[in-house]
């Protein structure tokens, strides 16, 4: 404990200023040192997730939007892109569509697989979320919830219904205790569909005619 009873205001400001300065320096250097690794981890996680939401796919191509059309691109770095997955025979399995939006706490980012032939979702995985541990974070692991995304019709628009009542092919049972997070996931997917589905469907149709 300091020996003097009252430190002057200048001393207080200087102490806190120095503490903040050193803390800032440490944080910036640790941030710079860990950022490349964290980025790489995220890329690897995305890569693994693409194949998980497109069952059967073994290779993938990147597509970006250009003048209202999907065109192939070399990398998805820094641009919005979708990933077309192909099975070993070269047949298209579907498109992995990354999407993000507001959850209960913070942005939820996820990727889902879309099969343009059947017009249905064939898989979904949450990539990053800060939902309430034990409640909202069930969107990551709850098997019943994830199973709802294995053959989910996208027309008409996907709906969230109360747990145990989802019967129709376009309905998802919300997780009890995590209604807001469940709804957020479906909303994010619907927004992703709005953005990408028309492009993907048009491309699939034109390819079908060319064959």
């Amino acid at each position: 404990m300091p020996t003097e009873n009252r430190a002057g205001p200048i001393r207080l400001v200087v102490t806190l200023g120095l503490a903040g300065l050193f803390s800032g320096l440490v944080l910036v250097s640790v941030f710079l040192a860990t950022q490349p690794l964290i980025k790489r981890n995220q890329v690897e996680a995305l890569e693994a997730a693409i194949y998980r939401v497109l069952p059967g796919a073994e290779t993938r191509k990147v597509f970006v939007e250009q003048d209202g059309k999907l065109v192939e691109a070399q990398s998805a770095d820094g641009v919005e892109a979708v990933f077309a997955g192909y099975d070993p025979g070269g047949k298209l399995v579907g498109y992995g569509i990354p999407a993000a939006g507001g959850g209960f706490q913070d942005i939820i980012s996820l990727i889902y697989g879309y099969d343009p032939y059947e017009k249905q979702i064939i898989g979904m995985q949450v990539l990053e979320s800060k939902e309430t541990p034990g409640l909202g974070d069930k969107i990551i692991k709850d098997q019943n919830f994830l199973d709802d995304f294995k053959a989910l019709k996208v027309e008409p628009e996907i709906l969230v219904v109360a747990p145990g009542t989802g019967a129709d092919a376009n309905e998802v049972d919300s997780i009890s205790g995590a209604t807001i997070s469940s709804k957020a996931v479906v909303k994010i997917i619907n927004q992703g569909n709005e953005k990408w589905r028309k492009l993907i469907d048009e491309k699939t149709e034109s390819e079908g005619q060319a064959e």
Partner: protein
Amino acid sequence: MSNQPGLYEETIKGIWRENPVFVQMLGLCPALAVTNSAINGFAMGAASTFVLVGSSLLVSMFRNLIPKQVRITTFIIIIATFVTVADLSLQAFTPLLHKELGAFIALIVVNCLILGRQEAFASRNRLPYAVGDAAGMAGGFTIALIMVGGIREILGSGSFFGVPLFGDNFEPWVIMILPPGGFLTLGVLLIVFASVKKRSDKRKQVRLES
């Protein structure tokens, strides 16, 4: 400082006699929240150890330079810095574990065990004692988390540190890895610890009287 206990006593007291979870009842939030498996308990314990030892080291080193009026603020700046470093490192080196522990790593900042040790001990004691105290307390905290996590994992998933223990016939007691399991396990452990302590205290008293 003649009547201060030795360095060894200051270090070892956190493990058992003043165990932060079982005796002081500090840091119960992470002890309940992340302990659905032994590995999660261990990781939380390790991250808290890093933060507690690092903060105690700095606080004790600068204890004579920090004015009394801003000491809590300064402690929090120091603690928050260590927590962010731990958070980023886990994210960089063990992304799966980081995903598992989620928001709780950032919440180490508000673990009252850590601020409590700065205020009660590190800011009043010389460096070796402060580090010893922090290491002992953190060790006791980690052991407690592994115990709670281990028991919950064995009963709730039938494994320990991810290694399956029982055959296929084992029906996991799922409630143990859900939040109520945390309360149940911690409550039972508290009863066990309190009764063991009571008995050993009584024995000591008998020895003193005879």
